[in-house]
């Protein structure tokens, strides 16, 4: 029997933009066990709810993550709106959907670039991030912010997108989609990419479900689960079907994200076409009294904001379960059997966002 050694992976590692640590137990070059460890940058943002009024906490929620910041604000706002029975105007729902899908687009393109980088495919990394820039430009144009948008609030949205800008965005979608499909073609059909990813980090459908996997990690294993199906924001009007792959390997998780890029473009196109007229927000009075588990589908999967009001301006509790935390157990199960050189690719295949996890 080969000698077992433990190789520490992270918290600082060239492929990890954020700190997570894994103790990899190896036999020769093969991983036989992985033990994760987090908490290097835990910020205690949940506790801040005691010091911020419930309307102000949207700003804190947005700062949980620098990638899906808008969706954290949306999830939090929807939770408060549910507790206080606030009816948000239709136009706000559509604008929230457009900004959510822009967030998903730039998150997936960011991940595709990082994933290409982890495989050593530098040109593909640069091309992915080049396309991501154009999405960030749209976010900056329409909200004023590339990273933190600040447009979502309890009761609606703060900013509108004018008809002229919407038409310009609509015109830009066709050439943008063509470029994304060129990029996706490399991820889906290039022989070197397939050779590197297929059969790597496999997790079955039953395992993914039993381990509580979320987002593309679950859908890449055939679990057809996407919270947009519940029809929050404008998804109910626009209609939505989850993107699902069945192989459960790194290639399948990559394919899900590539196809979700196309799906997001289609959702934005339809949201622009069907954008209703009307107000952007409703006036919010009083204070939340009650509790709700608000859920939104982020790029990495379902996020849960448990919010509990006590009739005052300060919530009694905000508890945030991020998709990366849910995807750590599946990651621990994916790694055994992988070669040490493949560990960065497998780890990145769950799209870990430690910033979210260390809320």
């Amino acid at each position, binding site marked *: 029997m080969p000698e077992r050694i433990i190789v520490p992976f992270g918290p600082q590692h060239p492929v990890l933009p954020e700190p997570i640590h894994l103790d990899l137990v190896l036999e020769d070059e093969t991983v036989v066990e992985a033990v994760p460890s987090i908490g290097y940058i835990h910020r205690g943002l949940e506790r801040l709810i005691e010091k911020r009024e419930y309307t102000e906490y949207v700003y804190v929620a947005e700062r949980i993550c620098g990638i899906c910041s808008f969706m954290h604000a949306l999830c939090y706002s929807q939770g408060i709106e549910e507790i206080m029975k606030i009816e948000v105007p239709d136009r706000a729902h559509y604008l929230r959907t457009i900004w959510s899908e822009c967030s998903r687009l730039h998150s997936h393109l960011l991940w595709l670039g990082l994933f290409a980088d982890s495989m050593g495919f530098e040109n593909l990394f640069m091309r992915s991030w080049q396309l991501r820039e154009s999405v960030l430009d749209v976010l900056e144009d329409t909200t004023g912010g590339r990273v933190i948008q600040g447009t979502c609030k309890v009761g609606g949205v703060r900013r509108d997108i004018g008809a002229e800008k919407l038409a310009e965005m609509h015109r830009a979608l066709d050439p943008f989609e063509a470029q994304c499909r060129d990029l996706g073609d490399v991820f889906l059909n290039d022989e070197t990419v397939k050779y590197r990813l297929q059969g790597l980090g496999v997790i079955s459908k039953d395992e993914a479900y039993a381990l509580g996997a979320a987002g593309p990690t679950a859908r890449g294993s055939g679990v057809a689960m996407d919270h947009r199906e519940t029809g929050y924001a404008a998804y109910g009007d626009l209609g939505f079907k989850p993107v699902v792959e069945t192989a459960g390997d790194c290639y399948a998780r990559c394919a899900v994200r590539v196809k979700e890029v196309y799906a997001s473009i289609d959702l934005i196109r339809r949201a622009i076409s069907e954008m209703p007229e009307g107000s952007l927000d409703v006036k919010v009075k009083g204070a939340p009294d009650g509790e709700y*588990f608000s859920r939104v589908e982020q790029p990495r999967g379902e996020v849960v904001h448990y919010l509990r009001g006590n009739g005052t301006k300060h919530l009694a509790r905000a*508890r945030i379960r991020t998709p990366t935390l849910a995807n750590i157990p599946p990651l621990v199960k994916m790694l055994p059997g992988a070669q040490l050189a493949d560990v960065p690719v497998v780890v990145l295949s769950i799209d870990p966002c430690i910033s979210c996890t260390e809320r």
Partner: protein
Amino acid sequence: MTVNEEQTTIGVALEDLTREVKALQTDGYRLVQIGCTDTGGAYEVNYSFDRGYQYRNLRLTVGPETEVPSISDIYWGAFVYENEMHDLFGIPVNGINIDFKGTFIKTAEKYPFSVTRRGGDQCRNA
């Protein structure tokens, strides 16, 4: 087609916890999260499950020193939430499959959300 989401919360006694969780697993529910709330002298622990966007919560209320049984032999992935319960709230969880014994989440304060925090654990940076 839009699927309607439903949320239900039912209380569960400490001695019934693992049996109720096992019943949900048998019914095809997945574990979504375990979260704690400090209710001023006690904790509410929400065990959240989902099946087809039907969201069910088992709510356990325990005192600060009460030992809670792990559900990680039923839901293997529960260890992340149970270690979090211990590291952030100081709730002792018995029988976790991967027990980090207080080192899963590294915080400056030993149990930052503990109901026994005041006059108890001191912030190391203080």
